[in-house]
């Protein structure tokens, strides 16, 4: 087995791994629906819609500090 063949197998293994990871991520997103902080992913759209400097953040950094 020469280096080119090794590279090709490596490339295939990497591709397969990435496919598994990506499908795992899809499953994770749609089954959990919420992130680790308990926010529904869809709420994050409000970061763009309510983006005045006086608007309340969707999840504020200061909330973390208070905990």
């Amino acid at each position: 087995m020469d280096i080119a063949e090794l590279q090709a197998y490596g490339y295939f293994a990497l591709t397969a791994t990435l496919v598994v990871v990506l499908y795992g991520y899809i499953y994770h997103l749609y089954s959990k629906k919420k992130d680790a902080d308990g926010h529904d992913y869809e709420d994050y759209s409000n970061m763009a819609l309510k983006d005045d400097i006086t608007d309340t953040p969707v999840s504020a950094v200061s909330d973390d500090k208070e905990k």
Partner: protein
Amino acid sequence: MENRPLEYDYTVAKMFMFTTIVLGIVGMLIGVILAFQLAFPSVNTILGEGLAEYTNFSRLRPLHTDAVIFGFTLSGIFATWYYVGQRVLKVSMAESGLLMFLGKLHFWLYLIVVAAVVVTLFMGITTSKEYAEFEWPIDIAVVVVWVLWGMGLFGLIGIRREKSLYISIWYYIATFLGIAMLYLFNNMEIPTYFASGGIGSWWHSVSMYAGTNDALVQWWYGHNAVAFGFTVPIVAMIYYFLPKESGQAIYSYKLSLLSFWGLMFVYLWAGGHHLLYSTVPDWMQTMGSIFSVILILPSWGSAINMLLTMKGEWQQVAASPLIKFMILASTFYMFSTLEGPIQAIKSVNAIAHFTDWIVGHVHDGVLGWVGFMIMASLFHMAPRVFKREIYSKSLMATQFWIQTLGVVLYFTSMWIAGITQGMMWRAHDEFGNLAYSFIDTVTVLHPYYTIRGVGGLLYLVGFLMFAYNIYKTMSARPVEESELQNASPMGA
């Protein structure tokens, strides 16, 4: 000191809006000149034989590509970053003297690099690597400019009030990291003067890679310049500006996350399709083709997500020329991300490679997707940064139709030209003798080259209308804060 309420500070965003417009005009004007040079070769010496050195196609071509990529597009990316970044992170640049200083330094150094690039390329100083023509001293300056942007970007993220990073921020970060990696690796070069102990010009260099390796690194870079310059940051823009302008939440935030990672995983491996039927290993060519086809999924994931964001609100597309620009941009994104994979299939590539169809593909992407989205972003930003309504809605609508016609003329003429070229090059008689010589194809293509020139000219005219509209916006009717919630205020 006066105790004023905190506001977003758009000083740096405004500076980059200015270069977006100026460099856009320069880059597109040169593009139109080039198009007419191809149709009418006498345009090469339009300023006389004495200046032919500076006006011929080969001297101007890198100026066109670099002006639109690193001038117009990159300025648009920076302008929108300095606008969107603050807003979705809910932090003002005015809150940090350091970030403001870095932002301004970023702009002025960028401008100096642009000047250096224009001068050196006009002088014919080039590394001859496509989209990476700058010689080593400029490359070092580019790295400094990039690092400054990165410091500003991560600095702003560091002082944010919003804990989560909005999807656009992910895309801006990917732009920063992607281009940093690509630029460094592709521009590895050896200054010949220093390596040889004083032979030749001090600024001259040769690539550290040779032959096939050089081609591989070059197209890994070249294709990913499309990825991280023309796709990723433009997706960042549409994910912010379309929901904001329409007042609609993104159709599926989860899909946006998924498409992001899909794009990141897949795009980097697709560049091999530029080297089909060349001396790179066959498996690599095949993988380049396969990854290009898979790329449809994340690309369409983002594009469909954008179109569905307008669900139930399609009347806005008819009512607002600004929404029209964004929806057409998204549609062109779908269209060119389907066209690209088709061209990357080996059997199609056998006809498409080296023909004008490739040029057509690039331009339906950059004119329809990148150009429209950057102009739409600036249109949305203008009332907010100048606190005045957009000068003219009808001018914007006229511009939209003129440019759409321009793009359609451009890509249809190049499709016909490209496929004609490809078929003529491979035609042969029963003994294997080629049926046509090269000049036969040139003769046949002349009308299509003329149509392409006209299409490009229409787009440039539209861009000048855009520039005028933005310029007049600075003196239009002032607007109240309440008018700036979603749909941008526009004068007649």
